[in-house]
């Protein structure tokens, strides 16, 4: 903590000191003590009394003491830092496998990878060896299943159903990376720690977000071990324009509220991995009605230059090709409703598609003639209707994907204007 204190002091000096008029009325601090991380909120009431609360329910524990010490200017020495040894505990599970492996999860993932590659993308779906490997993975994971591995299985099912070898390679590549990280001995680099956290769902490695405003622009149920196992909500921060995903298993309770909604989050946790990165709302207020000013703020944060999309997409996939599912809110300068193409102000084009298992291939591919694309869910037709009924489509939100090296947008929401008012249309 003294390190943080010193770093803060240095940064303040760099900024030229404190401006007059600022007053600290509330502080939320993430404190690690006794091997546990807790959030401590210290609030100054109007009557001058101090309200202190911690997420462990104690107001006199080591976390509260450490927070008060920091705020009161009493700097703790590094040697005072409690629980240093326990804080460094390994993220790797204890060896429980009969074979003596350090990670049964890694073994199960590797077996699944091998079984799938042996059968190939065209025949692996429903193959007994693959089914058995998935069952083995489920057994090793226990309940509740971690969301990262759950989504990996959902994506595996999707690419196998589509008989897509490119997609299969990415999903399994992600699995091999986490297997390597799980088997690595010694202190793990922070990136590998975050990878394991994202896959196996440890609550460590989260950072906090305070006093932020978000607008939820999409919501969907995605596959895991079962169909519709995970619910995702996509939230855009109105201060930074960052896209987050809030995620829950069917058995879990998420934050409440409709879609779209405005959320004022007093406290949220953020895990900076994958794309969009995951967020968990802890203290928040919900407004089901989003006013025009907020819509304007949201629209101003949409991606206006489509040339930015592909590099960001590739970067996300390089980080974790299995779990990255980038989402974008793009500004629509023009829309071709017959061919479902959207254009930015520089005439860069982004095609829309609906069914990720069906897409036109590149020119010269043998299957071009047979590969007809139909609107299998009616969502594109709905966009067409919205475009024709409204005064203009302003933004489209959707998941980015690629097929035949072409970048696509699979839309889940449209923002249009009609009679001078913003109209939000949820598509799924």
């Amino acid at each position, binding site marked *: 903590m003294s390190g943080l204190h010193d770093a803060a002091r240095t940064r303040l000096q760099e900024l030229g000191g404190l401006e007059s008029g600022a007053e600290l009325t509330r502080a939320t601090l993430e404190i690690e003590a006794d091997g546990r991380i807790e959030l401590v909120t210290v609030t100054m009431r109007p009557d001058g009394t101090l309200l202190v609360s911690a997420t462990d329910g104690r107001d006199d524990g080591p976390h509260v003491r450490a927070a008060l010490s920091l705020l009161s200017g009493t700097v703790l020495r590094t040697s005072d830092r409690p629980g240093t040894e326990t804080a460094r505990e390994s993220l790797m599970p204890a060896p429980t496998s009969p074979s003596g492996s350090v990670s049964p999860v890694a073994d199960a993932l*590797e077996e699944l*990878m*091998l079984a799938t*590659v*042996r*059968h*190939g*993308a*065209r*025949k*692996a779906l429903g193959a007994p060896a693959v089914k058995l490997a998935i069952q083995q993975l489920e057994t090793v994971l226990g309940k509740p299943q971690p969301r990262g591995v759950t989504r990996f299985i959902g994506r595996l099912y999707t690419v196998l159903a589509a*008989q897509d*070898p*490119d997609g*299969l*390679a*990415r999903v*399994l*590549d992600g699995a*091999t990376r986490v297997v390597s990280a799980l088997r690595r001995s010694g202190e793990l680099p922070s990136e590998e720690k975050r990878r394991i956290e994202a896959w196996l769902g440890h609550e460590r490695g989260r950072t906090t977000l305070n006093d932020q405003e978000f607008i939820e622009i999409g919501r969907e*149920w995605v596959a895991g071990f079962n169909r*519709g196992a995970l619910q995702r909500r996509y939230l855009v921060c109105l201060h930074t324009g960052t896209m987050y995903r809030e995620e829950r298993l069917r058995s879990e*309770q998420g934050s*409440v*509220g*409709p*879609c*779209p909604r405005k959320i004022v989050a007093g406290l949220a946790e953020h895990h900076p991995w994958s794309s969009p990165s995951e967020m968990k709302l802890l203290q928040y*207020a*919900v407004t*089901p*009605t989003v006013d025009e000013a907020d819509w304007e703020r949201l629209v101003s944060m949409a991606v206006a230059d489509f040339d930015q*999309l*592909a590099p960001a*997409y*590739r970067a996300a*996939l*390089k980080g974790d*090709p299995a779990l990255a599912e980038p989402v974008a809110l793009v500004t629509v300068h023009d829309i071709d409703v017959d*061919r479902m193409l959207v254009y930015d102000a520089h005439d860069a*084009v982004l*095609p829309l598609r609906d069914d990720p298992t069906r897409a*036109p291939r*590149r020119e010269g591919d043998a299957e071009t003639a047979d590969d007809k*694309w*139909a*609107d299998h869910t*009616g*969502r*594109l*037709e709905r966009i*067409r209707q919205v475009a024709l009924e409204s005064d203009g489509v302003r933004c489209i939100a959707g998941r980015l994907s*690629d097929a*035949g*090296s*072409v*970048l696509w947008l699979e839309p889940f929401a449209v923002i249009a204007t009609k009679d001078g008012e913003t109209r*939000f249309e*949820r598509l*799924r």
Partner: protein
Amino acid sequence: MSTRFEPKTERLIEALAIGLGADGSEKVRSELALGADAPDHDLARSLVQIVSACGVAEAGRVAPEVEIEVDGAEPEPAPADGSLLGRLGSTGVDGIGVEQLDLETCLGVMRGGALRQRRAALRVLVERAPDLGRKLREVVEVLDTIRDVELEPMLVQARTEFPGAVGRRARTTLQIWRSSLSDLEDHIAEFWDGERAVEPIMDLPGEQRAQLLLRTRLLPDGVLRHIAAVIEGEDGVSEREARRALVESLRYSGDQRLVPSLVVLLESGTSEIVMEAARAVRRIEDPRVRPALARVFERTVVDVARAVLAGALGAHGDRRGADYVRKLLDRDEREVKLAALEALETLGGPEDAERVAEFLSQPSLRGAAVQTLKRIGDGRTLASLAESASETKTSAMRGAIEEARESILARMDLRGEDVKEAREATQRMTLTEVRPPKTPTGARIRAFRLLIWGQILLAFGAVQAGISRLERAANLRPAWAPPWVAIALSHARKHAHAQALAAFRRAIESDRTVVERNPLVVRALAQTFLRRAEQVEREGRRDIARGLLGEVLDLDLRRAPSSVRFELQRRRRALQRASAERAA
């Protein structure tokens, strides 16, 4: 990706597509420069890593071919029915637009067309209203008599556009509705602010909730989003049964804004919720509905749910479930037959009419069979319906049969068939009035005087004295309903539902037709029964509530407001379900 490496990648992709076990792994090993003794794990890992890295490196680097043509929605199949009704509203070359029809035909479509056609006809009538001149009166009268709950959301709006008493009444009703909506919006805001623990829509009295949800299209986006959150279970408080009740109440809403939430329920709900969601989307014209229904239909195995889904698909022009549903009519289970009959409302054709008419002889299936025959609209079933009407003792059933007859005759007329002969041949199904016993003239005059006095006293607040005179009037002339009606209405105005209920029963015993044919009386009667049932249900006496609802639903409630009728039926179904679950 370099050009030197590309051919190799293509071979690796192919190896990953067919699998390493299919063609031996030797070629892949040599491509990857791995020795023959390298473990399979290493081979598989190297393969996926290289293919993945190459794919990611190339992603988004190719510009889309803007010449790509996108198929739109699947083309609508050619209409099976070649008559005007079959071609009406279809998009093919033989299709006929409703806007091309003359006024008389439009009114005929309103009586006998399919839901989509009736909606289109109503839209056309409202558009033409300012130019109709003298004929507007006829249109207003026809629309005022339509009590189709499926058209209620549109009728509410349409009636406000009309001149005269009908328009005034509709505008007043809408104004009252809007003021109650304003309260509801406040309650919703309080709910999300955490100031209110109970979900505000399910907290409304049944009739008010039904009125609100039948007019969903008029609701602002904020209220709609709230409803969507509740039915998806995202409000954090509503139990499954409450969510199901809300979805059931949305059956006739027809609002496109609810499609995403209803599709979520279709794809992830229990089979009861799936059925209710299917019934709700059946009435929504939206391109996302048919694909969603088709996906769920293909993977559903429960016969009842599958039949309801097939019926919903039928409403969107997809007849894939027609043969399956016909086979279900031969099954023994009543629930399966009911679902099959419901599905045949949209999937059935003249070839099914006689088979469906056979169910008229089974009292537990008669109501569903009448509804299906009404939608099929085949003139050959008129005789069976007439026979069934003469057998039934329930006026609600006779009313339903009468409605079905009118609808079938309207369809026959639109098909160019001879309606006059059919109308005369089936005239006997209309309600026969039972002549009340004669009362001496002196007693009749005294009874009439007492009725007038009683009503005057009630108007001046002398309730006891007024009721006493009305009771004397009723005793003087036993088969005369007006005194009991006046007593019942007086109690109903004071929200004394139990007393009003007793008086309504006496009125029905005296002269059922007077009660059933007066819209004001039948409205008050239905509301009284509904409120009393809610009251006793809250007290935990569910079986009594179920009995009350059954009793009122046996009456001919065609002249009661759609919202009240709908809520009575919905509540009875809910109580029946609860009773069956308790028994199980």
